[in-house]
């Protein structure tokens, strides 16, 4: 009976080596949830009209993916397989409600602008997808990093799309006027300011433009990252 005393695999929990770094950086590029997996499109279409909305949304989703991954992973051996989806949803819904209550207390105007879309993070496929695919099978620390990575991967595309839409749709970034005529453009005056030849493209603030812009972002991403092109 010599092999009774099996040594526990000695592994520090909070390492941040190459594998862990890959968990965070992979979703930003090679395995981006929006441009590669094409998940979470619905909110990417809805909240990308203005840059400040997209930034708040990116932070909120990163928080939710990170902590729902963490909690699900901590409970993964205890969650009964028959009701795992419901348990995951409860965890997600709780975190989203926490985000919503906090945002309402911290910045009420932004909360008013995002309105239902914060609540709709619950239905964001990225969150549920990461819980099923990663957190149910990996340790809490890795799952947490995976959640951060996927939240940021989602957020970075959201911010790129919102920057393009706000710049060409309203001529501003973060409400700071960059191109096009001043606020007078909406009237029938011929007010001219610097770079005033640019007429705001109203299509950019409507939902269809988010589709085009995301499509173009996916195209550019695949052209730039050769790993994404199917060899077959």
């Amino acid at each position, binding site marked *: 009976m010599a092999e009774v005393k099996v040594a526990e695999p000695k592994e520090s929990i909070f390492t941040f080596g190459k594998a862990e770094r890959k968990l965070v950086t992979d979703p930003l590029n090679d395995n981006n949830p929006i441009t590669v997996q094409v998940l979470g499109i619905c909110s990417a279409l809805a909240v990308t009209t203005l840059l400040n909305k997209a930034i708040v949304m990116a932070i909120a989703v990163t928080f939710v993916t990170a902590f729902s991954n963490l909690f699900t992973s901590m409970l993964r051996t205890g969650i*009964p397989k028959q*009701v795992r989806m419901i348990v995951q949803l409860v965890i997600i819904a709780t975190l989203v409600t926490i985000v919503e209550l906090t945002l309402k207390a911290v910045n009420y105007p932004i909360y008013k602008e995002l309105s239902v879309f914060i609540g709709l993070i619950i239905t964001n496929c990225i969150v549920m997808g990461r819980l099923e695919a990663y957190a149910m099978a990996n340790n809490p620390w890795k799952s947490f990093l995976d959640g951060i990575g996927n939240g940021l991967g989602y957020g970075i595309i959201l911010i790129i799309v919102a920057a393009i839409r706000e710049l060409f749709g309203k001529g501003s970034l973060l409400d700071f006027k960059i191109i096009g005529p*001043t606020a007078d453009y909406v*009237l029938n005056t011929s007010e001219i300011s610097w770079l005033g030849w640019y007429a705001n493209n109203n299509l950019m*603030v*409507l939902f269809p433009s988010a589709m085009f812009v995301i499509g173009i972002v996916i195209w550019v991403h695949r052209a730039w990252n050769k790993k994404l092109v199917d060899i077959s």
Partner: protein
Amino acid sequence: MHNTNYIIRFVLIMTVIVAFVLSMMYTGLKSVHQTNEAVYNKKAILSAVAAQLGKNISKLSNAEVENIFNTQIEQKVLDMSGNELTPEQIKSATGGVASTADKIDMGKEMKKPEADRLLPLYIFKASDGKVYNIISVRGKGLWDEIWGNVALESDWKTIAGVSFDHKGETPGLGAEIKDNPTWVSQFTGKKIYADDGSFTSVRIIKSGAKDPVHEVDGISGATITANGVDEMLERGLKYYEPYIMKNKKS
């Protein structure tokens, strides 16, 4: 495989923990939420007299907003026939919810029959001694509700400033009623009474305003929202007419 007993226990315990955490958080933050909401609504009212106040409304702190409301604004509530209501009457009309104008929920008032609606009125005393009367209007835009505050000069005839807000108008199009300061500033100086003393409202003209006293330009691409503002102003301003008639210096 877990047995049914375990599953039920797991789900029950999880639900209790989650419910406890969320209700604690909700109760803890409730007062902050209420303050935020009240300040948000008060800022909307102050936006109508932003020029007279000489301050950037969105940068005001909560305490500054409360201070302006306490020292420079007098609140009144009117009924549809132009009578001022006492705090007791307001309480009984709103079921104990409100006793001052800023607590009145305009969305709820819109659902009442027209004759029973309450009308908030804010009397703003600027630092130069001038008095402005701010009234609230509410209507429908393209997608959802729109509302606004109109500041009238002490002659009850000339518009000193307006502010609009909306629930879900399209950004860049209908949402310009809130976001575009140039469009909003067109209303300043317009008159809601014709020279012969009859009520005319301010019209929003799609093809461009021709009458410099009673008309403003529409927003291209947002005809329905602009029509909603037009309808809201005409109906909303008319609600206050009985009171204006009693108070106007001829």
